[in-house]
């Protein structure tokens, strides 16, 4: 009698667990769901930034006045802000949001320095081009890891 009672209790517990698991969807979530469009957007902005540095490097340093590049700075700034917003509104996405904030910070620093000095030297352009490539690779890899 007691054995039967215990067996019934065990099955009831297991059934409850299964029911609980099906209610919670049987999965845990620590990172946001993968979004292919975000990864594509990161790659697109990376290309845009790389082209920007390429154009600057292709121009003699005496002709790199800020005014000529103002629109490109603003366009890329807007793209980064939009990406930041898209990352921020996703649940479980703190790290990607922080990454975009840092990318934006670096971009704004470049913009302000160029505005202040009204030119940029070759070495700075090469170092920053490489830094942005690393930032975008890290961001794209981070998004890819969510698959």
């Amino acid at each position, binding site marked *: 009698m007691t054995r039967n009672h215990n067996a019934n209790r065990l*099955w009831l517990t*297991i*059934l409850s*667990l*299964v029911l609980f*698991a099906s209610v919670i969807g*049987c*999965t*845990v*979530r*620590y*990172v946001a769901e993968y979004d292919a469009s975000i990864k594509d957007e990161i790659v697109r902005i990376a290309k845009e930034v790389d082209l920007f540095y390429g154009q600057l490097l292709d121009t003699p340093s005496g002709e790199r006045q800020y005014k000529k590049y103002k629109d490109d700075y603003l366009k890329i700034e807007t793209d980064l802000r939009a990406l930041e917003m898209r990352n921020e509104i996703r649940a479980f996405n703190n*790290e*990607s949001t*922080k*990454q975009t904030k*840092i*990318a934006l*910070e*670096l971009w704004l*620093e470049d913009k302000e320095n160029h505005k202040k000095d009204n030119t940029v*030297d070759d*070495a*700075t352009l*090469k*170092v*920053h081009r*490489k*830094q942005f490539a*690393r*930032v975008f690779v*890290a*961001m794209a*890899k*981070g998004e890819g*890891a*969510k698959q």
Partner: protein
Amino acid sequence: MSFDINAVMKDMGAAMKETLVKDLGDIEDFGEEILEDEKESLEMIGKERVAGRWSKEKFDKELEREKKVIAVELLTIQIMTKAAAQKAVNAAIEVFVKAVKTALPV
């Protein structure tokens, strides 16, 4: 069908291990990539300072930027680690739910 919790736990552990082995390998590879890239960037920055083309102030500013780039890369390691843990836990839960379903009386 019987429900042997020890056997189920063993299968759950195996499922976790299987997903973790691959994901931890990817994290290690990315860690090595970070170090290699970091070496290149620091070499460029160091050369400019040693050649006297960059002032101490400019050098310090560039190092600060470099720290931010590394922070972005380390955030990717965090995402990869969390994603790996998520996959491993879910693989184990799947094994458990399957085992319980199989053991349920029809």
